[in-house]
């Protein structure tokens, strides 16, 4: 029997289609809901790749904006145990050296005058970068230097220990080294060892276009440095006669053996750290010139000098970017400041 078209017509009416549509709508909505739920779960548990969520980009941007350098742990995390106590003592020595290691400090400086932010600031010879570099060979004394040897050098030269009460740096094995090294070690928590870390030392600085010139440097100093360090460069004290800004030359500053007396070192430090809050604002040329100006002034003598100035220059300063043993405007530089009648401190 031939199918009657009229009979067939109602076979696929709108109603069954409506039923299918309802099913599809339910399935679509439910599936969508399930997908959304699964997506939320995946997002919450950070299973999604960063290019979908966009968090990867943000994170890297944040990291860049924050710092490309190693981050030492915050000071609030210094542990509350015997080790933490040593770390705190080390930090106290580092930031208030003339009190906490006063027997061995012959000038008005603290470690933290050159190692800013208590030794944490990159390109300010941060101690987290120094810690992982020792022991190492140093041409300064042609030996393998441990960290203790190195810190002993800081006392001898930067802290001018020969004008201190004890007349020299802390002896090997002194607790001062233990505490300082505890502080450095803690600051380097999580740092790779035996690796040159970004931000270590005072950073690199290009050679200036013109040879450095203390006369130009004097103008830079007057314009940018005198407000804090004093027009005479001898530092500034608060009303209790405590150094607020360190002396840059003279009897109360670092001696002729300190690394900072080398104009290249001082230029890098100045370029990357001075003035406070505005590092990098001096041109390379200005940084070199003002470093030359600072280091053209007399300061305590190099404790290694036993014979003549010229012998010491040849032995310890040959090839240095330094005015040690050089005649400048008719004056021989490097002879040293008069030793104080009474050693500094007690």
């Amino acid at each position, binding site marked *: 029997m031939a199918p*009657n078209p*009229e*009979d067939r017509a*109602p076979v696929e*009416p709108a*109603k069954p289609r409506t039923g299918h549509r309802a*099913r599809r709508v*339910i*399935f679509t909505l*439910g*599936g969508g*809901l*399930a997908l959304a*739920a*699964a997506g*939320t*779960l995946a997002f*919450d548990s950070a299973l999604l790749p960063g290019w979908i969520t966009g968090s990867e980009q943000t994170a890297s941007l944040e990291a860049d904006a*924050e*710092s490309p350098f190693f981050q030492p742990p915050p*000071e609030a995390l210094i542990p509350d145990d015997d080790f933490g106590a040593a770390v*705190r*003592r080390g930090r*106290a020595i580092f930031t*208030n050296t*003339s*009190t*906490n290691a*006063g027997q061995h400090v012959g000038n008005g400086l603290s470690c933290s005058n050159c190692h*800013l*932010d*208590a030794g*944490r*600031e990159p390109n300010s010879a941060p101690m987290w970068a120094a810690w992982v570099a020792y022991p190492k060979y140093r041409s300064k004394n042609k030996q393998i230097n441990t960290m203790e040897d190195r810190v002993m050098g800081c006392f001898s030269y930067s802290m001018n220990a020969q004008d201190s009460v004890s007349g020299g740096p802390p002896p090997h094995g002194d607790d001062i080294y233990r505490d300082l090294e505890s502080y450095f070690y803690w600051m380097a928590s999580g740092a790779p060892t035996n690796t040159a870390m970004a931000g270590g030392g005072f950073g690199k600085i290009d050679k200036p276009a013109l040879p450095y010139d203390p006369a130009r440097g004097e103008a830079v100093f007057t314009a*940018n440095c*005198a*407000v*804090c360090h*004093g*027009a*005479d460069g001898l530092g*500034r*004290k*608060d*009303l*209790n*006669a*405590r*150094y*607020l800004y360190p002396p840059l030359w003279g009897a109360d500053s670092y001696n002729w053996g300190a690394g900072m007396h080398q104009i290249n070192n001082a230029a890098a430090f100045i370029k990357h750290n001075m*003035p*406070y*809050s*505005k*590092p990098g604002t001096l041109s390379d040329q200005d940084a070199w010139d003002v470093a030359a100006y600072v280091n053209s002034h007399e300061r305590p003598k190099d404790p290694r000098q036993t014979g003549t100035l010229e012998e010491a220059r040849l032995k310890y300063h040959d090839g240095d970017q330094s005015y040690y043993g050089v005649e400048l405007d008719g004056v021989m530089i490097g002879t040293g400041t008069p030793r104080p009648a009474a050693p500094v*401190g*007690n």
Partner: protein
Amino acid sequence: MFRKTTGTPRPEIQRPDENFEPYEEHSGIPMPVLWIAIALGLWGGLVLLDTREATSVAQEERVDQVVDEQVTAHDDGRAVFAAKCATCHQPDGLGVRGAVPPLVGSAFVAHGPQIVAQILLRGIDGPIAVAGQTYDGHMPSFASALSDMEIAQVASFVTRKWGGAEGALPEAEVTPLREAAAGRQSWQGGAELATIIAGLPAQPAAGSRTVGQVPQAVSELVFAGRGEVWACASCHGDLGQGAETTPRLAGLPAAYIVKQLQDFRQGHRISESMAIVAAGLAPEEMAGLGAYYAALRVPSTATATLGADLARGEALALQGDWSLKVPACFSCHGPSGFGLAPVFPALAAQHAAYTASQLNAWAGGQRKNATLDLMTHISTALSPQDRRAVADYMALLPPVPARTDPQAARNMEQDNGTQP
């Protein structure tokens, strides 16, 4: 569901029993629906689990916090010491060689918390011998900066930790000490303290206090004014203590005050009122006013009014935030914000609203007269919350101690006049 309605021979229709109740045949739940249900169930379960974990973490944190609070509640003196005393006396109480006396081994501290509290309430201005060394002591009065409770706590903490003395000072005993100290000037060094402490090592004699006469002309300017130049005291208070966005002037370096007046006059610093006043002042009058306010020592009337995060303010003042290239405020403005003449003004006891408004003015470019433009970067780097935080912290500090001694005055003003 539907019926054929045509007239073709009907097939036999099997009618159900008339008692038949229509029913829907059982059919399995479609797989997609099952999956949806499973997924939703999984999601809900995991979210619950996740939340439960978060709750337990939060509970642990809360327990830690309560423990911390209990520890600090018992040891509040330590916190006050760290915030208010450690910048000078150092966290280890060893002081600063040649500048700030140690508390460790100090005969004054060993005499117990009552003595420490009296020193805190009045401050010290005069030579003092501690542990065999003589210090040219300048310690502020904490009377306006610390409550009786805080004085009691910090005095007890100091003597317990470094004086070898047991026993705590009750808060109630501070109240009469405060009343006795009210209106009195600071202790004139170890010599005056020796009058209340028996058995001290020999103390250096206090120098005579030389209070300079205030010139009549300056006094008239301050209290009466002259025509367009209205009296300083009419806004800054009789004692230069200021209020709200009107700064405290007492204790600011003289050269700093003179420079601000000149900057107002020349339009480098913007204030309608001050532009008018400064325009009417002769240079020698500015110098006289600067000297007058620099020598004024009055209690603080400032408080933390901005409701900001004081811990953050303290961190910025003491350590700075080097990730923002912001050094510690105290590294330039002096330990405890006493200022360093002539460029760096005292921040201690300054009104929070004023300090914050100036930081905002630098950040917004309305104030541009800082030496080397140092404050512009710092203010811009700080968030508005940070600016309020540091302003609130400064307001809680004790005011600049007196410096009547010529040497201290020289220390503060040593290159006064050589700066722009």
